[in-house]
């Protein structure tokens, strides 16, 4: 039982990490119907920028409380990522808004390769350790272990999702975003500055990516120029699973994917008598993704997508 509970916790935490990143994908897709492939890389940039600040601070002022240092890292990483997101949107996506669908997808891949290599030139290829500045509180719950940072990730993911839903439902910007998502042309006829709305979406998504990146590197204790790629891929799968363009869907998809991977890797070996093992962990994730897309292309919670050929 304690093993089962532990796997449940593992899955929920992993899922929250995916959900945090997935929210960024889903926002951009919801408005532009564009897979922002570079989103995972923005997460990576956030982590590495924050880590540089944290490392410098930990050296300069060793006595500072960990949460403060982390806050300082975030305070630098968020504006950097927002700026990055805005530049990418302006340079690589906006000129192609009316081009054939393939075009922005290919630039997105290109941007993602550029970001990876720029990060590699700045920070090198080695893994960078996250200094032990955070308290490592561990709690026992019915024989399973939960750490403070795991709780923080879970709570943060839920809070951010709720905040985003509030923004989208209750604010002027949110209304403009929904209008833009429905139809860019009509929205602009109604006096919505579509370019600003899209830029705002990228800004919010990139800020989220920065937060996610910092949380991920703090949790696993390291960061690396390549960390955004797989994370982004999983998070994107999560967003599709839940119904891309749907904020609750991103959360649900993330959690589900986390649980599938966790229970899959944890139990498949015993269930199949060792025939399949945890080496097929990533296969489950992709199989579920393909199955969902094939049988329910709009995702579990459905999306506001309209099929436009």
């Amino acid at each position, binding site marked *: 039982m304690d093993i089962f509970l532990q796997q449940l916790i593992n899955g929920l935490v992993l899922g929250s990490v995916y959900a945090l990143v997935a929210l960024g994908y889903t926002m951009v897709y919801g408005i532009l119907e564009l897979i922002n492939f570079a989103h995972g890389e923005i997460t990576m940039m956030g982590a590495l920028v924050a880590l540089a600040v944290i490392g410098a601070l930990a050296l300069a002022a060793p006595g500072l409380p960990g949460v403060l240092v982390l806050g300082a890292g975030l305070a630098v990483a968020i504006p950097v990522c927002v700026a990055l997101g805005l530049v990418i949107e302006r340079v690589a996506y906006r000129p192609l808004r009316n081009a054939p669908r393939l075009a922005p997808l290919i630039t997105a*891949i290109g941007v993602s390769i550029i970001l990876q*290599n*720029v990060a590699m030139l700045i920070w090198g290829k080695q893994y960078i350790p996250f200094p032990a500045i955070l308290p490592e509180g561990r709690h026992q719950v019915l024989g399973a272990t939960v750490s403070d940072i795991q709780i923080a990730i879970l709570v943060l993911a839920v809070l951010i999702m709720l905040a985003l839903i509030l923004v989208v439902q209750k604010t002027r910007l949110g209304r403009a975003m929904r209008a833009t998502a429905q139809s860019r042309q009509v929205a602009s006829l109604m006096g919505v500055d579509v370019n600003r709305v899209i830029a705002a979406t990228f800004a919010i998504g990139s800020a989220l990516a920065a937060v996610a990146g910092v949380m991920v590197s703090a949790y696993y204790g390291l960061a690396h120029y390549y960390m955004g790629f797989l994370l982004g891929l999983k998070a994107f799968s999560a967003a599709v699973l839940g119904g891309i363009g749907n904020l609750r869907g991103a959360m649900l998809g993330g959690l589900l994917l986390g649980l599938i991977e966790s229970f899959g890797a944890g139990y498949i070996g015993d269930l199949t008598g060792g025939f399949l093992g945890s080496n097929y962990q990533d*296969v489950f994730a992709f199989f579920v993704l393909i199955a969902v897309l094939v049988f329910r292309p709009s995702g579990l919670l459905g999306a506001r997508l309209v099929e436009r050929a």
Partner: protein
Amino acid sequence: MKRTPPRWLAFSLLALGLALLPFLVDAGMGRSWVRLLDLALLYVILALGLNIVVGYAGLLDLGYVAFYALGAYVYAWLASPHFGLHLPFWAVLPLGAALAALFGVLLGAPTLRLRGDYLAIVTLGFGEIIRIFMNNLNAPVNITNGPQGINLIDPVRLGSFSLNQPHRLFGVTFTGIHLTYYLFLLFTLMVIFISMRLEDSRIGRAWVAIREDEIAAAATGINTRNLKLLAFAMGATFGGLAGGLFASFQGFISPESFNLMESIMILCMIVLGGMGHIPGVIFGAVVLTLLPEALRYTGDWQRDLFGHVYVDPADLRMLLFGVALVAVMLYRPAGLLPSTRRRREFADAKG
């Protein structure tokens, strides 16, 4: 049109050039460049295969390397000590290509309803699934030998005539890599020929129609389902063929040769050269295969100039790819050597 030399002259010049190329390269630049030439031909086949799926039919496939891997593994299974089978290449290559085609249809069938970006992600997942299976199917039954890969794969051999030994023909010594060049050239020309015929056929025009507007294409009576499946199957066949040739050429394959980066690299080739345009695709494939070798010199220059390598040529290559992908899409969306039709389309889209 008046000024251009007669067609037969261009043809024979081209044929002569192609026949002499490995010797010119060998004499001028060393034999390792002939080997690169072989590799470039391999990538031309791969790129032309992906071009059918992406360039003609407009289906963004990010898992194309899976078919390449299948072809390579089929060759390795049937012509290496791994299972103790040593079938001749003319039997193994078609089998590999056929299996790849089958998987192409298997991948295509469930994804017919999916649009561009969803399709991209599903094919990417498919590519990863194939790689993960190749990497793990060494237990409980050893099928792929897992991450260790399969070694000692037979070279292409006809009777006692083996492609990894030098032969003297008509008083000229042909080394293994020269002969490989001619074999690969033969297959490349075949693939180019098929691509050309397809492009100008009813099928090719139907693909273009699907690419431009699937609903309109269906409304004009095009069987979009079958044609999309055919595109996947054709692309996969070429991929499988290239895989088999690669296995025999390299003699050793392991799953790390078939990762996502390889798929993206092939995609770069056709995007850079010009999607849907055969000379463009060939150009892209050749340039991108030779680029890392050319970039190697930048490492030497840096070492000579600064006594230290600041930017790794390998990293520089990836960075250049990234920049090239973005720049080409922004400024020359139809590629560096675009087809006239494609150029018009992109111009229309912009206006």
